[in-house]
């Protein structure tokens, strides 16, 4: 498995995927406080033209919460970009036939799947941590992060949502033949769960709620309110992995 992980890392660097994703998440990390910081200046610059239309602007107060609100708006976009870029991680190997020499050389299919899963979960974790860390650092420098309640719980829950999405991607990669099928499956399942969460009774158990970290920061919810969502996401991740192993084992390469 270590050999395959090393191969994945070398391939990611050579294809530039690691650098593109790192750049995106670093940019999002900087953009969150930057947008908050620039908001008063933007409002002031636009005040004259807004006044012409009858809108009166008052002094805008920004703090760490403004930046965190931006973080929770941007991170789903970051996750979508991550999924788009890694969607061909398995299927490109099926299409090119590159897994055949590896599978026939004594590396079990389970090891290949495990290595790819570890790599994808690890990449999401590192990229998410980088984005969170940058925003946290700037917020601490410009304002005070103490204003946000349950900061680390909110961050961890959003990370779990990302892990759940990556698990879906791995499952659809194990059953699909092309990256478009993977994207359709992962996107469709995530959208389906998001739409179902419109119903409050279902929302209490669906992973979609984990994305609403702002409720925790504003202390409108407590970390305990998300236990059912965490448990559901954990079970779905486990189920996706078990099904992926079974399907990947039977997959005709």
């Amino acid at each position, binding site marked *: 498995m270590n050999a395959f992980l090393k191969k994945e890392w070398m391939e990611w660097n050579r294809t530039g995927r690691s650098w593109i994703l790192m750049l995106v998440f670093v940019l999002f990390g900087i953009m969150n406080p930057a947008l908050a910081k620039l908001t008063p200046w933007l409002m002031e610059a636009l005040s004259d033209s807004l006044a012409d239309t009858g809108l009166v602007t008052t002094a805008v107060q920004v703090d760490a919460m403004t930046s965190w609100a931006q973080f929770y708006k941007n991170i789903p976009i970051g996750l979508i970009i991550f999924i788009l870029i890694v969607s061909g991680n398995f299927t490109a190997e099926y299409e090119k*036939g590159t897994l055949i*020499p590896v599978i026939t*050389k004594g590396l079990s299919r389970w090891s290949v799947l495990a290595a790819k899963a570890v790599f994808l979960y690890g990449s999401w974790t590192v990229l998410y941590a980088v984005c969170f860390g940058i925003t946290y650092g700037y917020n601490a420098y410009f304002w005070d992060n103490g204003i946000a309640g349950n900061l680390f719980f909110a961050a961890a829950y959003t990370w779990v949502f990302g892990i759940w999405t990556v698990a879906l991607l791995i499952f659809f990669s194990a059953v699909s033949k092309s990256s478009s099928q993977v994207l359709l499956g992962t996107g469709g399942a995530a959208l389906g769960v998001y739409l179902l969460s419109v119903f409050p009774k279902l929302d209490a158990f669906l992973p979609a709620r984990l994305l609403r970290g702002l409720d925790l920061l504003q202390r409108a919810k407590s970390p305990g309110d998300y236990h059912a969502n965490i448990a559901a996401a954990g079970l779905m991740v486990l189920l996706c992995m078990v099904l992926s192993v079974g399907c990947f084992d039977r997959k005709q390469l």
Partner: protein
Amino acid sequence: MLIINHLTKHYKGSSKGISDLSLHVRPGDIYAFIGHNGAGKTTTLKCIAGIHDYETGEIRIGGRNLRENPLACKQVTAYIPDNPDLYEYLTGIQYLNFIADIFKVSAEGRKERIKKYGDEFEITASLGDLISSYSHGMKQKLAIISAMLHEPKLLILDEPFVGLDPKAAVVLKGMMRKLCDSGGAIFFSTHVLEVAEKLCNKVAMVKDGRLIASGSMEEVVEQGRTLESIFMEVVNDVGTD
């Protein structure tokens, strides 16, 4: 070394596949597997390599059942597909080290074998280049070197001479003979019947997924005739039955 008993494999939604195929490749054998396009050669080789599952029958490698001990079987086997699909974004040496890592080949062992086979195929100087810059023949050479890194006892080759330059083909034939002289065995498919006749001590012919002739080259090819004429005759005879 390799025993195939009543192997049957068919693809879903297709009549193609193999039916009730039985063969025995003994240590020291260079066994040619010949047949027309779509006869079932690659399917058979892929079943032996563990890429395809099969419906019925049994494959034993080195006395072990492939279904029950797939990893142990693969540890003594090397399979080279007809199309060398390698990781284009790795360099030649990175790919060889990756394969050596999978087989847990020692640092000394891999260094020695990469040097030896790299020099024989005259590819050592290009091992630092990206595989994406390699020609088909160079990729084939790299695939052969990667297959030899763990010193396999059984070589399964699908059209191994396609894309190789004449010198590399001679080197490969030499390597095949050396492996068999040291107690290994080779089972390979080919359309080049002259090569099969000169190189192999055994031959099997397959048509529409069924074995139509097999045995030692002397048994199959009668005196004064060629493998090509026998092949054409046997294939046409079976076709008109």
